[in-house]
């Protein structure tokens, strides 16, 4: 049984994986995979039916998050069971429908893949036995619905609608997460059983109000409740199958599902009553009112959806047991008729090429079957007797009359409910009359006719259900409703009778009144006000939203312009200034009493003095000659060399090697970049600015010196260094502690670093233009025809294998002697640039173009897999082991597994550095002429 649950949840996701791999041309295969997975999942869930009806709650869980009450659990009570079957059942119908709806140009496999992702997320949401898991799936529905709504990526309205819906529902999701965390804290567990049982505690808790408001914000944003409803009409830019699915049974129902799910825990207070029912009421009336004035078929359905969601919310807000049952009932009914209506609208759009009700007229002659099915469904929407919508609406009216305790609302709510019902009759009538009668079609792009048979099957199935439920409610839906509503009511089910005729009573009167008023309203609107000329564009939420977004973008742009205006000087100035200010703050902070310097200062030997003087002299030269860029670069190289040698003088050979190679690589990069700059920079800065810069530089220099002195003149704290030195051989099997730290003790850091390095290199490659730019060569040598140097060409080719050899040598010895993957990688990268420097980029590219991006990928994979292997052997991530395989001829080979990690570092560094260098070289075209070297 547990496996069945997991399998049901996993099926859509597996289908999505398969579909992502499928070519888009395989339309029937794609539909078959999607439909098959859906039906199979539905069957698996249906098999839980007997248990659910017997009152059991099949559930299954695995440990998930490392604290109490946060297991990865699935749980099927009545509510979850019915909802899951609704999701899968309507999903299967929409899969069939979409196969015929989408044109041959639309990427079919991608559509179904996204559809399956969404279905999987929705299924997870309803089955989750853990509020945190529910939130995770909730966010997944937001993201996948974003992708589905924006499925036609080339259309601006689709992109805008998708963005809007993502923004609103994701913001709501954040609020929900906050609410759920609060709730979990109050209850002490996130498991649904515990939460549902803790209603008393929660309602009495001081955090109840914020918890409730946050959770309701999430639910209202998802279920498009007023005033957050404005994203839903914009989402109509989606393909109609998506709308039919998202706006009938799934996405927008997630909000009311959440309200129903947590109803036993949160409901029963005044706060709940007022917030939920008044929001629902406002949504019900506004949605229905605006729907009447929509000229777009799907727009009408969108606002009607909003209105019906308001009705459901209102019912849950009233919160009496009967109202709750009615709310659950209306969720089911609305899903059925709204899905079929959306699909009918899609058929009309598909066969006529238009959704404009000012042009669609008299279609009953051309598409009679569609007309019949649409009439049934919209009559259900209007609440006409003998159809399912009538029953739940009747229950709704009855419940609005039970508010005796609140005198004002006891009048207002029934009145407004009747008015909204009249509106809904009017727009349902408009849907039918405008489209299928009311004269002849006006300038349609296509000749209308009934769609292919299989497109009508889903609509017909649902319309049939409307009728069956409407005529034989107790038989068809009675048991299901009972089992679904029980967990929502949270106690014994109230007595209610599901029958068409309850005698003459007030609810019936309200229904009849609404019908007549609605018809009269429609006729009046058509005749007196010329409905078709009214352009009623609801303003409000969307405009505010757009204005907010625009203001945020403007503010961000202004701030960016202020800080990063494209001037490197400005950026350097700000960064230095910030560092200086922050550094000064640390000086102002209270200092611990400084202990006297205990260790004797190391006296500087002649080597140190020489290096220091060399650095000083070249710095002075650099400052004096910095306007001659090439010359300045030479001095900069000398400074770098001196710094590297300083590391050598301080017995840090690994640092020496690394620094030296980095210097070489950066000088090469700068040389290549110099091609884009004038040879000398002219002096244009006003003196004031130069004094400012000088002061800043001096301040920064003094600050750094002070810091260094402060660090050096204090006793060294107990450092990790001795530990590393002691453990590098026993713990990591290498005598070079520096390398051991990199590839073992701190291997996770290194993994992060090489990932960043690889990403940066790929970004550099992506940002640089791929084509060579001609005419950037500023070298007078090249211009004067100095041309190629045969000697350089041949030498550089000879050097490549030698350099590669050195790289491998550094890599192999790295674990025990100075060297390692980082150094080896840099050596290889520089070596790889040599042939292009000598013979030109063209020459190299004619022979081979190594894909350095792939090197980066393989390197990262190698490093990660090394770590995962130790994880698979039940050691912590990236634990080293020592192998000593005995190979023929070579005999025993000592290998620490950290070497494979180091191989990953080697490949990534070589790939990243070579990628950046060769791309820049290719761009500048300078190596082509060898004149710059």
């Amino acid at each position, binding site marked *: 049984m547990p496996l069945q649950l997991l399998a049901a949840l996993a099926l859509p996701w597996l289908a999505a994986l398969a579909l992502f791999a499928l070519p888009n041309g395989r339309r029937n295969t794609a539909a078959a995979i999607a439909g098959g997975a859906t039906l199979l999942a539905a069957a698996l869930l249906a098999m839980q039916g007997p248990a659910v009806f017997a009152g059991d709650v099949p559930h299954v869980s695995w440990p998930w998050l490392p604290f109490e009450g946060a297991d990865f659990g699935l749980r099927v009570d009545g509510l979850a069971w019915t909802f899951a079957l609704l999701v899968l059942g309507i999903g299967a119908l929409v899969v069939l429908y979409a196969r015929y709806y989408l044109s041959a140009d639309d990427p079919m496999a991608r559509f179904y893949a996204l559809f399956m992702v969404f279905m999987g997320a929705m299924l997870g949401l309803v089955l989750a036995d853990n509020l945190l898991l529910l939130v995770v799936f909730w966010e997944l529905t937001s993201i996948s619905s974003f992708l589905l709504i924006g499925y036609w990526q080339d259309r601006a309205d689709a992109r805008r609608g998708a963005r809007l819906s993502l923004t609103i529902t994701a913001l709501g999701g954040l609020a929900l997460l906050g609410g759920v965390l609060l709730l979990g804290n109050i209850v002490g567990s996130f498991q649904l059983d515990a939460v549902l049982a803790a209603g008393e505690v929660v309602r009495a808790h001081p955090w109840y109000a914020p918890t409730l408001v946050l959770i309701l914000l999430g639910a209202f944003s998802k279920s498009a409740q007023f005033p957050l409803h404005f994203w839903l009409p914009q989402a109509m830019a989606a393909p109609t199958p998506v709308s039919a699915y998202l706006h009938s049974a799934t996405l927008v129902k997630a909000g009311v599902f959440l309200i129903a799910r947590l109803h036993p825990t949160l409901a029963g207070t005044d706060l709940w009553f007022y917030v939920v029912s008044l929001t629902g009421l406002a949504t019900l009336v506004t949605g229905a009112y605006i729907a009447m004035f929509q000229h777009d078929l799907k727009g009408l359905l969108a606002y009607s959806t909003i209105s019906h969601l308001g009705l459901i919310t209102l019912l849950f807000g009233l919160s009496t047991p009967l109202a709750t049952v009615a709310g659950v009932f209306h969720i089911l009914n609305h899903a059925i008729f709204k899905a079929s209506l959306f699909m009918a609208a899609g058929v009309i759009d598909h066969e006529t090429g238009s959704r404009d009700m000012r042009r669609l007229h008299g279609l009953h002659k051309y598409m009679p079957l569609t007309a019949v099915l649409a009439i049934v469904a919209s009559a259900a929407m209007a609440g006409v007797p003998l159809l399912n919508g009538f029953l739940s609406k009747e229950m709704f009216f009855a419940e609005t009359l039970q508010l005796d305790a609140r005198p004002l609302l006891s009048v207002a709510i029934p009145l407004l409910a009747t008015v909204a019902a009249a509106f809904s009759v009017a727009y349902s009538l408009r849907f039918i009359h405008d489209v299928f009668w009311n004269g002849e079609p006006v300038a349609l792009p296509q000749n209308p006719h009934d769609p292919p048979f299989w497109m009508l099957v889903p609509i017909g199935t649902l319309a049939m259900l409307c009728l069956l439920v409407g005529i034989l409610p107790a038989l068809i839906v009675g048991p299901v409703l009972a089992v679904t509503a029980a967990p929502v009511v949270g106690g014994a089910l109230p007595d209610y009778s599901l029958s068409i005729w309850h005698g003459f009573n007030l609810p019936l009167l309200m229904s009849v009144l609404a019908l007549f008023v609605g018809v009269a309203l429609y006729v009046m609107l058509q005749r007196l006000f010329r409905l078709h000329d009214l352009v009623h564009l609801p303003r409000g939420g969307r405009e505010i939203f757009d204005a907010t977004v625009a203001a945020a973008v403007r503010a961000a742009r202004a701030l960016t312009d202020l800080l990063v205006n494209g001037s490197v000087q400005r950026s350097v100035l700000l960064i230095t200034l910030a560092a200086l200010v922050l550094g000064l703050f640390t000086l102002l902070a209270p200092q611990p009493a400084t202990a006297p310097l205990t260790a004797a200062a190391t006296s500087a030997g002649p080597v140190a003095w020489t290096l220091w003087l060399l650095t000083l002299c070249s710095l002075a030269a650099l400052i004096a000659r910095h306007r001659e860029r090439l010359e300045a670069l030479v001095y900069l190289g000398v400074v770098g060399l001196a710094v590297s040698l300083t590391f050598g003088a301080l017995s840090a050979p690994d640092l020496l090697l690394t620094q030296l190679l980095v210097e070489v690589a950066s000088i090469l990069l700068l040389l290549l970049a110099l091609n884009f700059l004038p040879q000398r920079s002219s002096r244009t800065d006003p003196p004031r600015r130069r004094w400012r810069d000088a002061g800043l530089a001096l301040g920064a220099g003094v600050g750094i010196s002070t810091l260094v002195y402060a660090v050096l003149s204090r006793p060294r704290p107990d450092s990790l260094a001795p530990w590393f030195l002691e453990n590098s051989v026993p713990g990591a099997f290498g005598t070079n502690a520096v390398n051991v730290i990199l590839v073992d003790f701190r291997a996770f850091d290194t993994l992060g670093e090489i990932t960043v390095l690889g990403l940066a290199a790929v970004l550099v490659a992506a940002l640089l233009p791929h084509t060579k730019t001609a005419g950037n060569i500023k070298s007078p040598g090249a211009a004067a*025809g100095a041309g190629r*140097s045969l000697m350089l060409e041949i*030498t550089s080719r000879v050097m490549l294998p030698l350099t590669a050899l050195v790289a491998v040598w550094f890599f192999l010895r790295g674990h025990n002697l100075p060297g390692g993957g980082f150094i080896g990688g840099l050596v290889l990268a520089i070596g790889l640039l040599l042939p292009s420097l000598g013979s030109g980029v063209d020459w190299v590219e004619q022979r081979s173009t190594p894909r350095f991006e792939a090197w980066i990928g393989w390197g990262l994979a190698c490093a990660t897999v090394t770590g995962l292997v130790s994880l698979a052997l039940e050691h912590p991530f990236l634990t080293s082991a020592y192998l000593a395989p005995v190979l023929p001829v070579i005999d025993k080979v000592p290998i620490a597994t950290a070497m494979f990690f180091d191989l990953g570092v080697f490949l990534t560094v070589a790939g990243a550095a070579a990628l950046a260098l060769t791309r820049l070289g290719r761009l500048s075209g300078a190596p082509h002429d060898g004149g710059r070297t």
Partner: protein
Amino acid sequence: MNSAAWVDWIVAALMVGGAAFALVGSYGLAKLSDFYKRLHGPTKATTLGVGGVLLAACVFFISAGRGGTEQILVALFLFITAPVSAHLLVKAVLSLNAADRPPQPPDDGQGRP
């Protein structure tokens, strides 16, 4: 350190010789009048000067029984690369002072604009 005295003498001679070449090379670089002449200085310093010091190190480490192959490798790389850089310097200057040169023979494949 168990090397014989004559090894010390050889090492010292090579060191001093190399250093002398380096000094002469540097002096020449500073003193000589025109670019082509001055180029002789650093080339002597890199080949003979550094080469002498490397040879000294090589002899020293071999006699001390601590390898010595690295120095040979360094010398190899140096002898491959140093002439190339000198050559390129000359080429660069030649192209800078193109007017001073006799015209190029037409068939050397360098007639690109």
